[in-house]
C-alpha cells in the first residue's frame, strides 16, 4: 500500500526511481561479487555515487562530487555490516549520500526514521496497534513495525536522519540492533533477527544547536565518515550548477539559463563569509551565524531562477540572486546584519564588476 501517487507525478521522486535506468544498467553489467541481499556490488555502488561511463555507453551521473576515498570508505563499511555514520556540518550532502547509498544497495531509500527532539523509542523499534493489543493481547499481528524493524526483516538498509537530534536514551535503543543485529520482543517472548544485508546509515550534525551527543557505546558501533564542505570553489560551483539544473527540471521552472557568473558569485560570497576572509586572504570578515552551506547556495540560485522566470526578464541576473543571498546570510537580525553590511561595503563595493549586484543589495 502506498499513500503517494505514482512516482512521475510527485514533487521529488526517490533516488531509486529518478535514477532507475542507471541502477538497472549498473546491475546488468555488474560482474563483481555482491554481498548477500545487495542489489549491486560495492564497486558498482561507488560508481553509481561518483558517476562514470559504463561499458555499454550508459552515462552514470555523479551524485556526490568530492573525494572518492570517502565514498569508498562508506561503501566498504556497509559491506562489513558495521553501521555507517555520516557526520558533517549542515548542507554537506549527508542525507543525499545516505539516500543514494540506500537506493543503490537495497533499491529502497524509504526505510527512514527522522530524528527529532520528539522521536520516541517506538519509532526506532516497534509500536503497537492499541485496538488490537487491547482486544487480543500482545501478538505479532498487533505489533506495528518501525522502518528499522522492516529493514531487518528484509535485509535492506535503514536510514536514520539527524541521529543527534534524538534524545540520548532514544539513540541508545539502536545499540543492541547494531551490535547483535537483533531486536528483542520481550512482550512476545521472542526476538527479531536481522536478515543479511541489513544495515543502518545514520546522519548527524555535531555542531548545530540543540543536538545531543552520541554515547560512547553507540559511537563505537558506527564507522564515521566526515563529509567536508567542498574543497575549492570550482568543485562547489560545479555542484551548484548541476543541482540547480536538476531542480529546475523537477520543479518545472521555465528554462532560464542559469548564468555561470551568478552561480560563481553566490558561491564566492558564501565561501568568503564562511571562511571569515576574502578569497585572496586580504580582508578578514565577520562570520555570520548561518551555516552558508552548498545546499543553501543551491536554494538561493534556484529561487533566483524562479524569480527571473516569473517576474524578471528570463535571465538570471544580479537582482534575482540578491534577495535570496541576503535572506540566506542574515539569519540573526543583529549580528548577521552587521556582518552582511560590512561585507557589502568592504568587499562587494570595491569589486568593479560587481556594481550591479551591489546596487541590487543596497536597494533591498
Amino acid at each position, binding site marked *: 500500500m502506498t499513500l503517494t501517487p505514482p512516482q512521475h507525478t510527485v514533487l521529488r521522486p526517490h533516488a531509486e526511481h529518478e535514477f532507475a535506468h542507471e541502477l538497472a544498467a549498473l546491475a546488468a553489467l555488474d560482474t563483481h561479487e555482491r554481498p548477500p541481499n545487495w542489489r549491486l556490488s*560495492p*564497486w558498482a555502488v561507488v560508481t553509481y555515487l561518483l558517476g562514470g561511463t559504463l561499458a555499454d555507453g550508459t552515462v552514470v551521473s555523479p551524485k556526490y562530487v568530492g573525494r572518492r*576515498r570517502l565514498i569508498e570508505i562508506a561503501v*566498504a563499511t556497509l*559491506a*562489513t555490516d558495521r553501521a555507517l555514520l555520516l557526520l558533517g556540518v549542515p548542507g554537506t550532502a549527508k542525507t543525499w549520500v545516505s539516500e543514494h547509498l540506500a537506493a543503490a544497495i537495497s533499491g529502497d531509500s524509504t526505510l527512514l526514521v527522522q530524528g527529532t527532539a520528539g522521536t520516541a523509542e517506538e519509532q526506532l523499534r516497534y509500536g503497537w496497534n492499541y485496538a488490537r493489543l487491547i482486544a487480543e493481547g500482545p501478538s505479532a499481528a498487533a505489533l506495528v513495525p518501525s522502518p528499522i524493524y522492516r529493514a531487518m526483516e528484509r535485509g535492506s538498509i535503514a536510514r536514520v536522519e539527524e541521529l543527534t537530534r534524538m534524545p540520548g536514551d532514544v539513540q541508545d535503543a539502536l545499540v543492541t540492533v547494531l551490535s547483535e543485529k537483533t531486536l528483542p520482543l520481550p512482550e512476545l517472548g521472542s526476538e527479531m533477527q536481522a536478515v543479511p544485508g541489513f544495515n543502518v546509515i545514520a546522519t548527524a550534525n555535531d555542531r548545530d544547536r540543540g543536538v545531543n551527543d552520541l554515547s560512547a557505546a553507540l559511537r563505537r558501533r558506527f*564507522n*564515521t*565518515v566526515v563529509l567536508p564542505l567542498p574543497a575549492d570553489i570550482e568543485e562547489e560551483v560545479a555542484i551548484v550548477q548541476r543541482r540547480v539544473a536538476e531542480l529546475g527540471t523537477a520543479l518545472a521552472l521555465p528554462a532560464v539559463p542559469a548564468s555561470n557568473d551568478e552561480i560563481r558569485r553566490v558561491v564566492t560570497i558564501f565561501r568568503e563569509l564562511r571562511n571569515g576572509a576574502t578569497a585572496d586572504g586580504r580582508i578578514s570578515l565577520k562570520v555570520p551565524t548561518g551555516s552558508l552551506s552548498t545546499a543553501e547556495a543551491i536554494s538561493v540560485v534556484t529561487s533566483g531562477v524562479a524569480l527571473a522566470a516569473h517576474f524578471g526578464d528570463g535571465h538570471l541576473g544580479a537582482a534575482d540572486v540578491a534577495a535570496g543571498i541576503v535572506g540566506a546570510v542574515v539569519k540573526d537580525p543583529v549580528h548577521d546584519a552587521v556582518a552582511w553590511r560590512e561585507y557589502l561595503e568592504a568587499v562587494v563595493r570595491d569589486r568593479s564588476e560587481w556594481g550591479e549586484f551591489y546596487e541590487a543589495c543596497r536597494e533591498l
Partner: protein
Amino acid sequence: MGIRHHGPGSARSVVRALALLQPTVVLVELPADCEAALAWVGHEQLQPPVALLGHVIDQPQRAAFLPFASFSPEWQAFVWARAHGVPIRAIDLPLQLSLAGGAADGDGAGDGELLLADHPVGDPIAALAAAAGDPDPERWWEDVIEHRGDGAPAFDAVAEAMAAVRGGWEAGSVREARREAYMRQCLRMALADGHQRIAVVCGAWHVPALAMPLPPATVDARTLRGLPKVKVGVSWVPWTHRRLAFATGYGAGVRSPGWYAHVFAHPGPEGVARWFVGAARLLRDRGLPASPDHLIAGTRTATALAALRGRPRPGLVEVLDAADTVMAGSTGLALIERELVVGDAIGEVPEGAPQVPLARDLATQQRKARLKPQADAHTLELDLRTPLGRSRSALLHRLQALEVPWGAVQEGRGSSGTFRETWGLRWEPELTIRVIERAAHGTTVQVAATNRLLERAAATTALADLIAVLDVAMLADLGAVVRPVVARVEAQAAHDPDVVQVIEALGPLARALRYGDVRGTDATALRNVFDGLVVRVLAGALMACRSLDDDAAAAMVERLAGVQAALALTDHAARRAEWPAMLTIITERTDVHGLVQGRAARLLHDGGAWKRAQVGNRVSRALSVGTPPAVGAAFVEGFLAGSGTVLVHDRELLEVIDAWVSALAPDAFVSTVPLLRRTFGAFEQAERRQLGLLLADQARATGSGFGADVDAARAALALVTVRQMLGVPQ
C-alpha cells in the same frame, strides 16, 4: 634481481630467490669501497636501521649516507650471504670517485641525496603504472611487486618491464653511465673469477644495463678512465626510521618505514590484524580507548576497502582509512601516524666497528656519564653538586661547544645560574653526522671542543662573542680555553672604543664569577678581567650616556640596570663608591637623555645610595618649571620604568608627581599626557588601581605589605630560614 630500495616485498623476494639460486657470489649495488665495512654485517650489535657513511677524510662535511633498514633488500642480501658464507661484493662506483665528482659540482652536502636518488625510479614506474592504467605509481608498484614477494618470477617480470621502459643498456646521464660501467666491470670480474651462479642485487632501473650479454668492456673502461679520486673513510652510523621517512627529506626514502617494517615482518594476510593490534596497544598505553571491537571493525573495513579498490591486500592507505573511520575523532590518529607509520626505531652500531675517532670517544664519554642517546625527546635534571651531574653537564656543554646540540638547557637562569640544570635531550641521527663533521677538530670530545672554541674566539673581534665563548668554556669545564680567551677579552676591551660592548660583557662575566665555584672552575683570572672591565665601564659610562636619541636611551637604561645587577651579583667594591658617584653625575648632567637620568636616579634610590629626600628633590626638580615637559616626562618614565610599586609605597614621591601633574599648564599637560600614559600604562592593573585609590584619598597607604594579624610564631619560622640564607647569626 631488480629491486626497489627499501621495498619490503623486494626484500622478501631477494631472500627467497637467493635461497633458490644458491649463488656463489652476491653482488650488491653499493659503492665498492664500502665492501670492507660489510664484514660487520652479522655482528649482533649491528642492528638496522643503520647507514654506511662515506666521508672525504679531510672534509668530513662532504659525505654520503647509505641507509639500510631491516626491510631493505640490500640488507637482507648481506644477511643471507653472511649466514651462508657467500662472499659479497659491492659493485657500485666507489665513493672515492663519486664524492670527488661532487666537489666539482660544488654540492658536497647534497651528495648523499644524489647518490641514492639519481635512479629516476619514479619515472619508469610511473610509465609502467600509466600503461597499467593506475594513476598512482607507488601504489601500483606496491600491488604488483611488493605485495607478491614470490621470488625469482617477480624479478624476471621486473627485468622485462624495465627493459621495455629503458630500451637498452645505455644510461641516461653521465653519472649513471659511470656507475653502470663500474657495475659491469665488477660483473665481468666476477665472471672472470669463475663464478657460475652470480646474484646481483640492484635497483630495478639498472637491470637492463647489467643484462647478458654485456657490451664490450673497452667502452666501460673508457668511461671510467681518468676520474678524480679522493680519500674516503667509511663507517657505520646508527640511523632511524624517522630519517628514512620521506617526510624528513632524504632521497630514496620511504614515506612509511614503520609500515614497511611491519609488512616485512608479517607478510601474511594476518598482517593487517596484527597492525591494528599494535595500534590498539599503542593507544591504550597512552590512555586512549581502543577495544577489540575497534580492531575487528578496523581489520574488516580495511579488507573490504582493499577488495573494493581491487587491491590484492590492504595497503597502508586502506589501513589508515579504516583506522580513520573506525576511531574517528580520536586524538590517537596522529600518534599512530608518528609511531607506527613512520616509527621510532633507532639502529645500533657495535663499538669496534669503523667509526671516526671522535665518535668513538663520544661513545665512551656517554657511557661514562651514563647517558644513552635516545631518539625521543626527554628531559634530564642535573644536580651540579654531584660529580656525576657535573660530568654530565660538562659533556653536554662540550657537545654544545662542538655545535652538536644533543640537548638544550630548558630553564634555570640561562647559564650557570643555580646548582640545578634541566636539559631537554633528543639524539637525532644528524648529530652523528655533526660529530663526524667535527672530527677534524680533535680525537676526543674535550680536545675537539677546546679547539673549536679557540677557533671561534680567534675568528671574532666582538667582545660579546668572546664573552659567549668564555661562558660556554666555563660551563663545559674547558679550562684550557679560559686563559687564552680571557686574555683576548682583556685586549679587546682595552681596544674596543665602544663601552657599550664592555657593559654588555659584564653580565655574563658576573654570572660566571658568582656561580663558577658551584662547578669548581678556577675564577681568579676571571676576577681580574672583571675588575678591569668595571674600571673601563666607570670611565666610559658617562660618554655612553650622552647625546642619545629615544631608542638608544631606552637601550641604555637597561644596560645601566645590567651593570648595577652585575656589581650586586659579584658584590663588587665599586658598587658602594664609584658606581653611585658615576650615577649621580649622570643624573645631574643636562646633556643626558631624560630617560637615562630618571633611571640613574631610580638606581641610586634602589641601591640605597640616595636618601628618600634626596630622591624626592631630584624628581621634583625634573618635574618643575625649568625643565621642558618632554624631558620631565621622560625622566618619570625612566624613573618608574616597569613598576608602580615605588609610587604606591612612597607617598612623598607620589605627592611630588601628583603636584607636578596638577600644576601643568593646559598646553603643557596636553603634550605630556602621551608620555605619562606610556609610563603608567605599563604598570600592572592592580598597581594602577591602587595608585588611583591613593590619589582619590580613599585608602591610606599601609606602609607595609602585611595585614594587622601576623602570626608571630609562623613568621619566626620563616625568619630562621631567611637568616640562614643571608648568613645572619640567629
